[in-house]
């Protein structure tokens, strides 16, 4: 078969302006945008490093939903101890119900909360049973009170008194941190 010179081709010899506009761009701005991977990865890596640095693997003491802690500037770091939460009229020891505050507020008298006292004493007894005699002098004496900022003083004092009587004289009030003066 003889070889012929090719005939007229589309786009080159036969003008197809609408195709040129759609396909070849026709000199208009391209619809595809280039994403710079280098800067994107840089950003992601910096974010990961920042979050890793501020990550706490030890976990934080959980706060009851809706409970607002007061803020203080002259604070100390948290420690690991039983947490007594007072919020919405309930007293909770590590999330377990250990009394209610309505009676205390109504009577306006500082009392010992029986349920809380029993549970705290039981906790202490359990610790003593599970540790050898040589460690008995290190029996835990610290407790953390997680109290909503609007709770009345009579409730705070009642819980304070109960914890002290149960053998937890080192009582710590949990607060939210406020920037220290001079920082």
């Amino acid at each position, binding site marked *: 078969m003889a070889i012929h010179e090719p005939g007229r081709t589309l786009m080159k010899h036969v003008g197809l302006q609408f195709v040129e506009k759609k396909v070849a761009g026709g000199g208009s701005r391209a619809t595809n945008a280039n994403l710079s991977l280098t800067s994107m990865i840089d950003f992601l890596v910096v*974010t990961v490093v920042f979050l890793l640095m501020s990550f706490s693997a030890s976990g934080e003491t959980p706060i009851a939903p809706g409970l607002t802690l007061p803020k203080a500037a002259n604070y100390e770091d948290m420690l690991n101890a039983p947490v007594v939460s007072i919020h919405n009229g309930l007293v909770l020891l590590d999330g377990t119900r250990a009394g209610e505050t309505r009676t205390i507020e109504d009577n306006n008298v500082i009392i010992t909360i029986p349920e809380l006292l029993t549970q705290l004493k039981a906790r202490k007894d359990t610790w003593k049973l599970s540790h050898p005699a040589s460690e008995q002098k290190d029996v835990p004496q610290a407790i953390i009170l997680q109290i909503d900022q609007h709770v009345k003083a*009579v409730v705070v004092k009642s819980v304070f008194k109960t914890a002290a009587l149960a053998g937890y004289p080192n009582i710590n009030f949990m607060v939210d941190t406020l920037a220290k003066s001079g920082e």
Partner: protein
Amino acid sequence: MAGVDVGGGGKGGRKSLDSEINMIPMIDLLMVTISFLLITAVWTHMARLEADAQVQSQQQDKDVEKPQVERILFIEMMPDKFVLTWKEGGVKVEPPGAIDVPRPPDSVAVSRQGSTEVVHYGDLAKTINEQWKANSRTQADNKKDLAILHCDNQAEYKYIIGVMDALYETKRVMGPAGGADGKKIDCSVTHLQQCETAFNVTFTSQ
């Protein structure tokens, strides 16, 4: 796709020395890591204010024969003022006697930070610091001064924390580093790591 050129041309049918890092799984990994860290992040930082319940121990009962008379600072929260009194063995120390510190109204003392109301009693903190310098214990015995807080049963917890925060603004260095009286280094100026609160707080049970 991004690539890493490690040199060489890979001639003569040998395996090419150019290798490529697949960017898609790498970006996926970074995204997942960021998501995990953001979800588990804790943005509120909790701390504590320490108080000490004065429970008389059996050992203290045995030591009744040699009583230790210590100065104790009593702070009374009144609606319009704070009353500071130093007592020694139940007897008011004269001077200074009872010192009145005006209690600012809530519109001045309380500020809002989000849902939290921050109570700040600056004048009280300043007066307590001055009083501590003039009246506190003098031995470098690593013991804190005791402060007893009297407040109305109907007072809200945030005001108690406000007073405790003012009280804990007074700091000292314990032991020899702080000098014979614990006041050699001024912790209000230096912010040293060894600086501790000068007071232990407790409440009255009435």
